[in-house]
């Protein structure tokens, strides 16, 4: 379909709110004060952490259990490195300056055309097995995109499922339907097929369930006035995340405490701000990632593409693909040709080999990989000839469905984790020339975060081992330990608070622990060089229960319960230091157990939520 959108008022209208469910969150406010307070607290916390670790390695190792003690100290050190990377990666949050939407194509080009024309924009809605009516919503919203200047907008339904009913729906909606014989390259291959058969200057990528808001183009295209900008990523926002029950309401009704409960809830909310019980049980709300992590990458040009909800400059993507393609051909020809001494013969051989290699090469605008979005971002950021820029635009301009149940959640998270770790193992951005130090740090922080179970699991097990067996990872739970550890914990908590001000992080922290098994499996999968499957995250709720997913968590919880019982039974309050040691280990065990609980509850008792349907 082609819509020539006429001239309209350029004044940006307020955000339209015609989608059902909750309104998208405005990005949390940022300013220099936030950065300064956070940086001061983070520096302080990291200094205290360094001080603690120096003491930990030099004065606190337990000679009675050297291996255990060193193992836990190593896990603490890895966790500390994680904090350093995380704090550095959110050091400065910066939003890109808003620029007016370009009028014509020449506004976004470095070398203007002789015959200027309106911009051409293609919207790609990719689908594989999602229900027709779900995809129809996305297609309809894509058709309703607004723009203040004349624009050639074409919506394309890219169906890798080759379904007649999808084709029929595209015809009903008046949009183009593109499909292909194979599924080579999965989503990246599907996108390539779209690029080969369309002509937009800019391309909007939507998943099957991505519903753009009408102002997506009005707000984001201005960034392309900088001809070095290759893509703009907007936050992904789930319109179906359970908002939970406000605490006063929950205490009054669900906990049956009546008015007293409501009053207690109100007082609590006065003190700590709004509390919603049972909100976002799967921790899928991606605000902490987008509002903090991606925003922290704008200033050093390291915001990466996350697929859906992004706008791309076709020329950047295609040119990058050509350069990599040609590089691959060269790399396969060079070693063979180099063996030939005669220059004329060598050139002839090189040409013959090159065309042979080119036949088998694949042009990959989006790298054929399960994490094609982040991989392609690394490659474009590292393009030393073009120095492409990326922009993270902080306002929510598309909305989509969250993973519907623990199974879908696990499939999606496993895909993210194994994809990122696979890039780290096979083609590590840290070794890539062309990325600067800050870009490497940002990509490094992302990869490192997926190694978390290497330290979270030992740190969850340490108090269990102590309570069960009485083996301690430290020489003594005494005043010296608290004097070194507590200031660090308090300071880093304050720094985290300041760094993520206004963004809910409780679920992310819980799932940082609860994701241990999934991340461990992903790590094992990649290290064993098993092939990565491209699993499509199910968009409809699975009928079966997902209790099996929680088995490792249940085992760990059982061990924790046994440890609490055993440690309490064995407690001799009169022994010096015993009470403090017991209290500390009980505290950490309860804290860790509480972090595992939401996932276990979600897996064992999947909640029936309203299906999101038109």
């Amino acid at each position: 379909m082609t819509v020539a959108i006429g001239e309209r008022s350029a004044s940006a209208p307020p955000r339209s709110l015609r989608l059902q469910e909750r309104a998208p969150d405005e990005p949390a406010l940022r300013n220099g004060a936030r950065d300064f307070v956070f940086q001061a607290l983070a520096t302080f916390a990291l200094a205290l952490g360094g001080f603690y670790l120096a003491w930990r390695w030099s004065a606190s190792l337990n000679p009675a259990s050297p291996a255990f003690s060193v193992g836990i100290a190593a896990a603490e050190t890895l966790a500390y490195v994680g904090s350093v990377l995380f704090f550095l990666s959110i050091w400065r949050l910066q939003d890109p300056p808003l620029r007016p939407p370009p009028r014509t194509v020449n506004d976004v080009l470095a070398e203007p055309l002789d015959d200027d024309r309106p911009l051409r924009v293609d919207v790609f809605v990719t689908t594989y097995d999602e229900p027709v009516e779900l995809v129809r919503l996305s297609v309809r919203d894509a058709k309703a995109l607004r723009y203040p200047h004349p624009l050639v907008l074409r919506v394309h339904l890219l169906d890798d499922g080759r379904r007649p009913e999808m084709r029929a729906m595209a015809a009903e909606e008046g949009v183009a339907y593109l499909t292909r014989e194979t599924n080579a390259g999965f989503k990246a291959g599907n996108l390539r097929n779209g690029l080969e058969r369309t002509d937009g200057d800019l391309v909007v990528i939507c998943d099957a369930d991505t519903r753009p808001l009408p102002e997506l183009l009005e707000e984001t295209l201005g960034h392309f006035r900088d001809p070095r900008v290759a893509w703009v990523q907007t936050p992904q926002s789930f319109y179906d995340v359970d908002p939970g029950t406000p605490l006063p309401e929950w205490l009054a009704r669900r906990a049956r405490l009546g008015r007293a409960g409501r009053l207690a809830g109100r007082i609590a909310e006065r003190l700590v701000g709004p509390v919603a019980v049972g909100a976002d049980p799967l921790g899928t709300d991606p605000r902490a990632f987008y509002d903090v992590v991606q925003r922290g990458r704008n200033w050093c040009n390291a915001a990466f593409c996350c697929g859906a909800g992004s706008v791309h400059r076709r020329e950047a993507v295609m040119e990058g693909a050509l350069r990599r393609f040609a590089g691959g051909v060269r790399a396969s020809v060079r070693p063979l040709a180099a063996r030939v001494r005669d220059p004329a013969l060598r050139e002839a051989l090189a040409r013959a080999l090159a065309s042979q290699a080119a036949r088998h090469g694949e042009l990959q605008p989006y790298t054929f990989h399960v994490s094609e979005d982040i991989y392609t971002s690394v490659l474009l950021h590292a393009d030393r000839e073009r120095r492409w820029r990326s922009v993270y635009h902080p306002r929510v301009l598309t909305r989509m469905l969250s993973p519907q149940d623990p199974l879908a959640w696990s499939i999606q998270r496993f895909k993210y984790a194994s994809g990122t770790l696979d890039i780290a193992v096979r083609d590590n951005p840290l070794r890539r020339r062309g990325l600067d130090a800050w870009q490497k740090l940002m990509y490094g922080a992302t990869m490192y975060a997926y190694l978390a179970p290497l330290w979270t699991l030992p740190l969850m097990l340490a108090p269990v081992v102590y309570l069960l067996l009485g083996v301690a990872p430290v020489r003594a739970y005494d005043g010296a330990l608290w004097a070194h550890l507590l200031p660090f914990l308090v300071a880093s908590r304050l720094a985290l608070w300041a760094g993520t001000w206004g963004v809910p992080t409780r679920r992310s922290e819980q799932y940082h622990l609860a994701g241990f098994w999934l991340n461990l499996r992903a790590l094992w999968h990649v290290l064993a060089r098993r092939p990565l499957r491209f699993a499509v995250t199910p968009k409809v709720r699975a009928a079966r229960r997902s209790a099996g997913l929680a088995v490792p968590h249940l085992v760990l919880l059982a061990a924790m319960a046994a440890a609490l019982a055993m440690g309490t039974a064995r407690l001799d309050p009169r022994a010096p230091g015993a009470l403090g040691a017991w209290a500390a280990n009980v505290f950490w065990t309860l804290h860790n157990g509480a972090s595992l609980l939401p996932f276990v509850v979600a897996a064992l008792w999947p909640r029936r939520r309203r299906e999101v349907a038109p």
Partner: protein
Amino acid sequence: MLHVRFAETNGALIVTPLVSRLDAGTAPEFRATVTPAVAGRRLVVVSLSHVRAVDASGLAALVAVLQGMAPGGELRIAHADARVRALLASTRLDELFPSFEDATSALLA
């Protein structure tokens, strides 16, 4: 409709797109028109005598054309101006697509 002129000389095919830009706007049709015509060919010369500008999508179409030729086949470019040559060099495709002054010299090389 995109016009392309085909000419055959000693088994080689000379392809001349009659457009001023071989870019995202014309590449899909160029690809669809030319790829079937080059099947089994060992030498194809793409003459850019009418073309003033080529972009990455245009070059991607040339890659698709090359991939549709006979194994070991060669695609040469004639009449590429300085900007096209610069793009070929910057994408490093200049080794794969050797470029020549005109079709005659491309055929003789």
